[in-house]
């Protein structure tokens, strides 16, 4: 519904030239939600010209393969734009999904936000 579509799904903090993104939801599952999060993230790149994105997953407890697809598209978009995407704060259980699908080889994943900030 429209109220659901408008609610905030990410928060963005600028630390120097790095946009640090936190997820509001603990579960990243349904298509509409993932689409909205994706739109917000792509807007950072395409409209706001951000070239260093640090996605902090420390608030996220569960996500499905649909969210992985969106991260892959964001990674590809960042590469096209000459930017860099880094993921951090991923819970061990979710990290096993990245490893299982070998996306840990394609996406840059670091332990925590502090490490991420010094990894660009």
């Amino acid at each position, binding site marked *: 519904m429209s109220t659901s579509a408008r609610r905030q799904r990410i928060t963005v903090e600028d630390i120097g030239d790095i946009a640090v993104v936190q997820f509001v939801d603990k579960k990243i*599952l*349904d298509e509409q939600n993932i689409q909205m999060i994706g739109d917000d993230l792509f807007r950072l790149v395409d409209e706001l010209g951000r070239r260093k994105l640090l996605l902090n997953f420390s608030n996220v407890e569960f996500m499905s393969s*649909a969210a992985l*697809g969106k991260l892959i598209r964001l990674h590809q978009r960042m590469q096209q734009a000459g930017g860099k995407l880094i993921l951090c704060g991923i819970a061990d259980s979710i990290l096993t*999904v990245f490893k*299982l*699908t*070998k996306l840990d080889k*394609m996406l840059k994943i670091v332990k925590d936000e502090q490490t991420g900030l010094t990894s660009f």
Partner: protein
Amino acid sequence: MSDRHVNVEMSFPSDLSEARRIQADLVEALQSNGYGESHVFAIRLAVEEALANAIKHGNQMDPGKHVHVTYTVTADRFDIRISDEGPGFNPTEVPDPTADENIERPCGRGVYIIRNVMTTVDYIGKGNVVVMTKLRGDPE
């Protein structure tokens, strides 16, 4: 210990929010039977992926079509059968999403994830029925 054996049978229209409600009950049943955090995560993930496949790819989000779910939770094992009203598919034809040529594809990981987190997975008939088991004794 009290017997916490849980047996559920239900049908619901092709709506992803219905799938979320099933998972909340399922997680509660697993936890009350003493399943550890990583097993609960694995089962929940497999069920999420299988229900999403049934609703999106099987029933094509058609609200006139239903998904049928039967599951059992005991202290030793979890069994679930999920069927949709779609045309089915051949699981052997799903490309390996971890292959170099597929790794950057944004879709096609659900079946692979299910196979890797559950103890056994079988697609029955034309492929519109999936039967999955997770043994509690599997390494966490």
